């Protein structure tokens, strides 16, 4: 792909990233950080590609380490974020939560 196309993707993504996150409330800072953290675990795609092209055992081992690290980032990131948000979730609908508790 030509450099300017890549640059255009980059620039547009910068704007999207900036705009989407600006003005988020401080209560959500940690989950948002952790969610964004999970997203960059997508480097796993890159790690898989290099592991699939490794030409000797040495390179393969390094590539598999990258796959392992990236998997931990990706899977752990999404799971941890979900757990965190599970706890946050209810907090935002106190009325509903109360009803449910009352029903038990």
């Amino acid at each position, binding site marked *: 792909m030509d450099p300017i196309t890549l640059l255009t993707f980059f620039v547009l993504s*910068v704007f999207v990233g900036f705009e*989407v*996150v600006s003005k988020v409330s401080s209560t959500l800072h940690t989950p948002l950080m952790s969610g964004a953290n999970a997203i960059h675990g997508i480097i796993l795609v890159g790690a898989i590609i290099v592991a699939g092209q490794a030409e000797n055992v040495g390179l393969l081992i390094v590539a598999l380490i990258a796959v392992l690290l990236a998997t931990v980032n990706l899977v752990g*990131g999404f799971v941890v974020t979900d757990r965190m*948000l599970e706890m946050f979730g209810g*907090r935002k609908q106190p009325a509903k939560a109360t009803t449910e508790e009352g029903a038990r």
Partner: protein
Amino acid sequence: MSLLSIEATALLYLVAAVCFILALKGLSSPKSARRGNLIGAFGALVALVTVFLSTELDNLALIIATILVGSAIAAPISRRVAMTQMPQLVALFNGVGGGAAALVAMLELTHVEGIGAVIAVAFTVLVGAVSFSGSVITFAKLQELMPTRPIVFPGGPIVMSLVALASLAAAVWLVISGDPLASYVLLGLGLVLGVLFVLPVGGADVPIVISLLNAFTGLTVAASGLVLGNTLLLVAGTLVGASGTILTRAMASAMGRSVAGILFGAFKGGSTAGSTVASDRPVRSSSAEDVAILLGYAQRVIVVPGYGLAVAQAQHTMAELATTLEAKGIEVVFGIHPVAGRMPGHMNVLLAEANVPYEVLQEMDEVNPQFKTADVALVVGANDVVNPAAKSSPGSPIYGMPILDVASARQVVFLKRSMRPGFAGIENELLFEPQTTLLFGDAKESLTKVLGAVKAL
């Protein structure tokens, strides 16, 4: 396998990228946050399926096995970790991501063409390594494997500058020669740089540094996208880089700090840890029994939890105390300051984990008018978030930060271990006011004693 055409592959990657955008969008509003995260996970799944179906891959079995091992490591840890340990886990996950990006770039070095791509490799190796080692140090600090206070050693700034210069030189060497050896050197220097970078940061500033390293890792992933010519990595990485930058600034400003101040504060001397000198002015301290009597005969109690509650892991004891008081007909609510604790939203998470019902957790704006009618404000391991200096003394480092108005409660009880100040390192005049009582000791121990005494009333 190459079951997918180039167009189909690109389209599926685009779908994954859109999922990531929607994930970030969702995460920035409380109502849609959880769904947003799931959309993100779905996007990742799409991307993984796509890479397997579209690329000719050797070592397929090994790769899949490694992914399974990785998932088997990450999922249970993530599912089981205590809420108090979330920040360090996020730091760790961020670090391994940065490490993975650095390794991927190193391996691609022999395949890339063109100066631009080699520059991207050098960037990824260096920044990925910084992100990896920096995150490991933040992990160690938060996990208390090492002291959380800023670690400054004589000549630190000079060593740091030298390492930074050496890294730059190695990067230039790499770009000019394309020599793999240069990339190993760069990796090593990056690792050292990351350590030096995070050591001088104080414990409470660590969340901001994690966020910054998170943005760094995002940028390395974007650069890997350039190296591999993969649009998805480019877009996803850039998204994280950009939103992480904004988030870092937002976090810093929510606690009234500047990012540069945090990173270089310890070097410059105006340390982020503030003073830790205990005051020796006289205060009124009392016993757990006295506090129990105060609480037991109150009608309305407002609990203000802070950093100390988290450190002492006292949330469960606190929750039990609240239940016990409520059983006696005493109204108990919790006043939650947005930056109380170690990370934004920390108190909400902590107390939700301890099964404190949602409706007694109140945000700052809700709870502030209620202090006037409260009999006791019970401040558990909080300090800065109730310090009136934020309103009254323009010179103080927390000036302008909104605070919980505990001073207007009839009685104020502080649970802390000593007369040392809080994170901002400034004395709290409220400790010396006539309506204030102190109960010294670890929050968990003190609360346990108070709980026993309340039950015995």
